[in-house]
């Protein structure tokens, strides 16, 4: 596929260069003969360019259809893994439908008019300066449509951002630093111990600057993987120790920046376990596709005598989505959504904060 495109594009370039040379030759050859060299479009140019305008309209439609078919399977606008995710997806689909309709119609009008009203020497344009009714029409219609979308959007937004909607969310801190993530669970008391980067003590392994004297901190649990029980509301409390980061969890339709010096929040309820997501038909397709690509790459690597790539298995990811320095592209954390019992058994294996500190004399 790619090779085909390379060839196609090289052909385009070659044609362009060839055309140019031809034009130069022509212009040189006919310099003695009287031709229209005014460099102002004449009827012939108008005709050609008008046809190309229609051609370009076809190109835009073609690339739209091609993209929808080929890339339509990429988008994250289906299979949301969180409760509010579905709301966002529905809004997204309606918005896309609106965009698609407006785009199709306006581009048609633009290029079709360009084609239809191509200039001819003895033609004269219509002197038409104003029409208040028309203008009112295309002020009011967008206004009405947008009012609908604004209302819909705002309702969704206020619902998504309402951190108080659940009485008893599990509280988890996401802690960002160049270039990795940590998660801190609030423990049995479900209250995070106080913290500040000024309390960081690397020698004692207090890497998050948690306040040891705070009673709530004793049972906090710090991990490098984010495990979440399914169908339990989670309130994320986010901190950063150095620069801006952004906790982006695309499958859960969740994103919030981590800002040094302040605490930011985001809440959602995961609804699909990692295992269930792996069984999702479209996810199965995606994984097979990726594994085929990786196999091809592995073969290539093997010929160079390098290690083959591991086969891919789907996992939710937390990505950094705010430019944060050299390894920004590799700042990630695995998210595992699992049934309550599995979560409990994993959680009970973790060391609580009090016991994770290295004693010092």
């Amino acid at each position, binding site marked *: 596929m790619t090779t085909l495109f390379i060839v196609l594009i090289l052909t385009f370039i070659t044609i362009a260069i060839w055309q140019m040379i031809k*034009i130069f030759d022509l212009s040189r050859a006919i310099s003695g003969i009287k031709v229209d060299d005014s460099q102002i479009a004449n009827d012939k140019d108008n005709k050609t360019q008008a046809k190309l305008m229609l051609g370009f309209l076809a190109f835009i439609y073609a690339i739209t259809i091609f993209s929808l078919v080929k890339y339509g399977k990429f*988008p994250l606008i289906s299979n949301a893994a969180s409760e509010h995710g579905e709301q966002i997806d529905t*809004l997204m689909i309606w918005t896309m439908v609106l965009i698609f309709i407006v785009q199709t119609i306006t581009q048609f009008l633009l290029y079709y008019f360009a084609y239809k009203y191509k200039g001819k020497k003895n033609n004269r344009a*219509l002197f038409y300066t104003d029409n208040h009714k028309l203008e009112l029409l295309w002020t009011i219609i967008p206004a009405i449509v947008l009012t609908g979308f604004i209302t819909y959007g705002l309702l969704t937004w206020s619902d998504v951002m309402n951190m108080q909607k659940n009485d008893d969310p599990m509280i988890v801190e996401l802690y960002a630093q160049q270039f990795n993530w940590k998660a801190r669970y609030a423990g049995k008391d479900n209250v995070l111990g106080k913290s500040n980067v000024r309390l960081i003590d690397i020698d004692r392994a207090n890497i998050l600057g948690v306040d040891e004297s705070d009673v709530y901190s004793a049972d906090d649990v710090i991990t490098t993987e984010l495990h979440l029980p399914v169908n339990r509301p989670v309130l994320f409390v986010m901190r950063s120790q150095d620069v801006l980061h952004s906790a982006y969890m695309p499958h859960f339709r969740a994103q919030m920046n981590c800002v040094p*010096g302040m605490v930011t929040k985001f809440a959602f309820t995961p609804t699909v376990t990692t295992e269930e997501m792996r069984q999702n038909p479209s996810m199965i397709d995606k994984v097979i596709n990726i594994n085929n690509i990786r196999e091809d790459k592995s073969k290539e690597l093997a010929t160079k005598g390098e290690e083959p790539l591991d086969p891919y298995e789907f996992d939710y990811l937390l990505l950094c989505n705010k430019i944060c320095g050299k390894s920004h592209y*590799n700042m*990630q954390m695995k998210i595992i959504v699992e049934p309550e019992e599995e979560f409990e058994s994993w959680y009970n294996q973790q060391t609580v904060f009090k016991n994770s500190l290295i004693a010092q004399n």
Partner: protein
Amino acid sequence: MAEYIEFDKDHHAHHHKETFITKYIFSQDHKMIAKQYLFTGVFFMGIIGILMSILMRMQIAWPEEPNLIFDFLLGKWAPEGVMDADIYLALVTMHGTIMVFFVLTAGLSGTFSNLLIPLQLGARDMASGFLNMVAYWLFFVSTVLMVISIFVEAGPAAAGWTIYPPLSALELAQPGSGLGMTLWLVSMAFFIASSLLGSLNYIVTVLNLRTKGMSLTRMPLTIWAFFVTAIIGVISFPVLLSAALLLIMDRSFGTSFFLSDIFIQGEVLHYQGGSPVLFEHLFWFLGHPEVYIVLLPALGIASEVISTHSRKPIFGYKAMIISILAIAFLSTIVWGHHMFVTGMNPFLGSVFTFTTLLIAIPSAVKAFNYITTLWKGNIQFNPPMLFAIGFVSTFITGGLTGIILGDSALDINVHDTYFVVAHFHLVMGISALYGMLAGMYHWFPIMFGKMMNKNLGYIHFWVTAISAYGVFFPMHFIGMAGLPRRYYTNSNFPLFDDLADTNQIITMFAIMGAAVQLVFLYNFIYSMFYGKKAPQNPWKSTTLEWTASQKHIHGNWQGKIPEVHRWPYDYSKPGYKEDFVPQHIPLKKGEEEY
């Protein structure tokens, strides 16, 4: 038949003796200054900016593969031809900075505002030729500093063109935040000073130096656009200057405006009480109006070009003016839509969603008015017209996805992904570029008295148009698949492996699009010297610049300045033999203006 105003003898009558230096270097003539902006801003910086984007695209398409071009162009930053991750971010940053500020702000406004404001208004020159010269030379200093910063030891600024602290404030966080960032900030301070002087000059000229009869509602839409652009610039650029100065204080003098509670590389820094979110507010208070500083001149140029080449008055002239004003007003109260997920109060997010989506209304009015202008026209497909139609097309395609990004709930999931990159490149990058190119083809005869080759112009347009859609259309889908922007390579998570071939296709189109700009460059420079001599008014346009002396003289018109009697869009007016009636022709008895 045309009446002329008495030549202002005290001011311009005696012709100054020009030396090489006063004519070409420290020139105070607006036409020469326009060309200076064109060559420094558009050509010099444009070539650097485009080249950087190609390097980035090659890295994204073939990550971490040794590449001869990297080896050649990047030297020690690409050991053995593999691009360094820090330098990738530096390229991202410098490409953005150069394109947004140097090419599309100074280059676009500097060239066309300077060239057209006096000529289309019937003025001898700008209100202050001296200030105009100072503005250009401040811009020149800024350009030199920015280019020098690319070559410093630790690399140029690499915190993104938005230079959010703490990343941009701490050398410990990133090597580019040392000398490179200092130079960036100082360069931008010069740039802002230049932009403010320039803008003040434009505003004063428009308000005071219009020729007799040129009322505000007889001004061409280009001038309206330049005028409003200058006003937004004067309102918003000082805020960026203050943000830059405060950032300099934080970096060099230990203040804590934007920094607080930072632990980096094993040490706690002394900063306390500042907030990066404050910087984001200050930055985007300029940053969003900046989008319209880039776009409005292109809208103005497109209005003029579409009307002239379709031989038809622009539809809804007054609505166009009102929508420019509405867009300008709204542009200053929507900056928060860049910050929905920064931890800003969600209620503020609601307010900014509301104001942002309102912008779609005046934008829709403009798009429909352009389309109606084409309806029943007699369209002459000269190269500028192609670019103007291309402008409307990308303005629509790119603008529509703004409905997604402006909606806070949807922004959560596409924020900072390639969806954003695709959106803003189409709606402000490519659109503004098209507007600029339309302007260049259209006013080339004014600038150099020559015509550009139309066939090369056609090739230039069609290949550019195909490349632009080829690059940015699929990019929306990569973004919707969740791929974050500003990633050095996407091969670190298998999750994105299926996007690799799309990225290669995009890169091919990008290379094709960049290559065809060479055709334009060739056409431009060749035509400057060997182009066919242009007639006085090749496009049969109604505006005043086509009545000015073709030979560039200080004062623009030999003899008197023409007086204006009608609006600028009398194309194909019934009752006239020609299909255009220039602005300086008096109304016939009983003729209505429009």
